[in-house]
């Protein structure tokens, strides 16, 4: 009933292959974009920015990055935390070395550097796949965290080994540091997310995306029909690394402001982003958003309900949270391996046919 296709005729291939072929979807997409860009910045406060929206935006970028690698190209990666750390440290070094350069450039460069590192660690993927590749990227995770802890050059020889973001601006508006206004940090991250999502969506629809999916579905068959596995796999690692690097840079500079590598970018971060991709939906841009929103909001919602409304002790709520997230991952893997994105897709199909299902 909501998703009526009647009257929504396509007369060209271009119309038919656009991202949102159904008019209702398209309008909804523009409404969401308008809300995010034109309404939210005016009503945002510190709590919404720092506790909910910033983590959601930044984890969405990371989930899109990982989804390209795992969901679209089928290269299992457990190195997300380490690659985010590369983005964060690259951004830190750039910020301190070139204070007068705009934050936009720093974040993009940090993404580029991470992309190169990610390609280097993706090289083994030409020979190994599946679990073996997962272990190779796991090695990247541990190596990178060890490296950033071990070599003082990366943290500018500070006594504690922490990196903390100095105040930097874009066009005179503070983006990092404690005095940055909530709306500015939000807008800055939102611009990157919109940009990343747009690029990712269009890449995955085109030739490169099809070659990724061919490799994912069956690499030997893909090679026979003329997909170059070297190019496909390394481009997936490169693009994924860029997004993850951007998210790491934002995570450090805009969201937290100070980072300790083992604590912020440990193996838990790799798992968290992987869970976002699994719960959200492998091979879906919308799924990356849904997964990030789910895992960022769920703990906050559980805390508000458990502690503030029901008045339970904080430790009980924290434990219940672990149980619920764990159970949800198992349930999703069994009941809906394609995640929230697939649930949404099925719901849409049903609504389009309502009230006359097949």
């Amino acid at each position, binding site marked *: 009933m909501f998703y009526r296709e009647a009257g929504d005729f396509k007369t060209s291939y271009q119309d038919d292959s656009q991202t949102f072929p159904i008019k209702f979807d398209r309008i909804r997409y523009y409404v969401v974009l308008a809300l995010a860009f034109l309404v939210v910045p005016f009503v945002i406060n*510190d*709590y919404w920015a*720092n*506790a909910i929206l910033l*983590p959601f935006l930044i984890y969405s970028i990371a989930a899109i990055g990982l989804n390209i690698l795992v969901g679209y190209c089928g290269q299992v990666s457990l190195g997300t935390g380490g690659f985010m750390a590369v983005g964060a440290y690259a951004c830190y070094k750039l910020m301190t070395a070139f204070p007068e350069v705009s934050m936009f450039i720093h974040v993009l460069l940090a993404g580029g550097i991470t992309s190169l590192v990610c390609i280097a660690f993706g090289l083994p993927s030409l020979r190994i796949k599946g679990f073996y590749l997962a272990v190779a990227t796991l090695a990247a995770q541990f190596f990178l965290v060890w490296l950033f*802890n071990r070599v003082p050059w990366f943290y500018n020889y500070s*006594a*504690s*080994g*922490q990196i*903390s973001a*100095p*105040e930097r601006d874009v066009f005179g508006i503070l983006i990092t*540091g*404690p*005095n940055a206004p909530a709306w500015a940090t939000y807008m800055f991250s939102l611009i990157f997310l919109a940009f990343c999502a747009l690029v990712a969506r269009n890449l995955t629809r085109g030739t490169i995306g099809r070659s990724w999916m061919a490799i994912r579905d069956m690499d030997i068959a893909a090679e026979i029909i003329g997909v170059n596995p070297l190019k496909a796999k390394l481009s997936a690692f490169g693009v994924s690394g860029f997004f993850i690097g951007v998210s790491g840079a934002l995570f450090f500079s805009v969201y*937290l*402001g*100070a*980072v*300790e590598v*083992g*604590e*912020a970018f*440990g193996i838990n971060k790799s798992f968290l982003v992987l869970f976002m991709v699994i719960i959200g939906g492998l091979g879906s841009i919308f799924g990356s958003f849904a997964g990030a929103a789910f895992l960022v909001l769920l*703990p*906050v919602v559980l*805390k508000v309900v458990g*502690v503030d409304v029901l008045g339970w*002790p*904080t*430790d009980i*709520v*924290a*434990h219940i949270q*672990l149980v619920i997230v764990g159970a949800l991952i198992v349930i999703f893997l069994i009941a809906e391996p394609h995640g929230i994105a697939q649930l949404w897709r099925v719901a849409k199909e049903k609504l389009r046919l309502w009230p006359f299902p097949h």
Partner: protein
Amino acid sequence: MKMKLTTLALGAMMAAGPAMADLVFPSLSYRTGPYAAGGIPFADGYADYFTLVNERDGGINGVKAKVIECETGYNTEKGVECYEATKGEGALVYQPLSTGITYQLIPKVTADGIPLHTMGYGRTSAANGEVFSNVFNYPANYWDGASGIINYLLEENGGDLNGKKISLLFHNSAYGKEPIRTLEELSKKHGFTLSTLPVDHPGQEQKSQWLQIRRDRPDFVIMWGWGVMNQVAIQEAANIRYPMENFIGVWWSGAEHDVMAAGDKANGYKAVTFHGVGRDFPVFDDIQTHVVDKGLAAGAGDQIGNVLYNRGMYAAMLAVEAAKTAQEIHGTNDITPAMMRDGMEALEMPEARMSALGMPYFGPSFNVSCENHGGPGLVGMTQWDASSKTWNLISDFAPSDRDVIQPLIEEDSMAYAKENNIEVGCK
């Protein structure tokens, strides 16, 4: 009848007038995760003392204290979420009990004008109040701890550590790395060799470090550990038969749960401290009557008198005293975070005041000033007695080597001020 009317009118006026708001003390606690063993007793002690003040004294000068607990799990992201969630409720002071979260909050509290009290942890150079206007780390900081350990060893060895070998076993994080600079300076001054052995989070894996210790045979081992790392280290030390008297932890590595696991073998292990141990203080009788007997004890109520419970209670006591100081300075009982900051900066803790609170000689007497947010840094040594299962204070609170520490504080805080364009000086 007239009486009644007046009372009624008065009552109505009281009800209609602005109700005196509670004084809010958020507790960013962690009762879950790999560091919960230390987080639980501290949070219990912190909460119980405020309950005691409310029950026994009817609040802080008549205004009730309200503790909002928020679970961080020692995780910095959750710490930030907790800070943002509670700061709007009039939070007077934050005590996150985590060096990682402290680093997150230092710039945020300074921008928001809320004080941060990191007692014996956090950023050591925050002791320089001219740079870190809203951060306090009295009565002692990490570098006092490191220097206190070396001073104790000097005393034990007739004032000479020349040629001795000392190993530092540390948690490989900002927290664990803090003492290295000071120990390096001290090794130059006193002529001992220092070797550093990092242990990665959370600290269960220490086999290679202890192999190294067995091979090097250092004269003393200093430990900068927290959480599960301490228990493993003490067990490993017992396994290689390292003499426990020569094994000294910082105050975060010296509580009951750290040594209990190793049983009798942990006998003689030492740790520095900046406050009293045990429950031989009159304040515990008050806690028994006003908190425990009324069924108001926080958590399971089984931590009372433990080292970290005492530390949480001490932290709460200092917060209450600072709040009273702030009320005096500003002449109002309903204080704001900015007034609380002034109260903390003007805090004086002479022995008489602590005795009056039922905590005689519980901690060193000290004053805070604008230039010095770190206090005098007096530290004492405690030792574990496995047979009676108690920690005992085996030395007086003695000053640390400020000749070495002060220049380091100056250097580090000035670097921070330069990086962040902070105007140095007292307002």
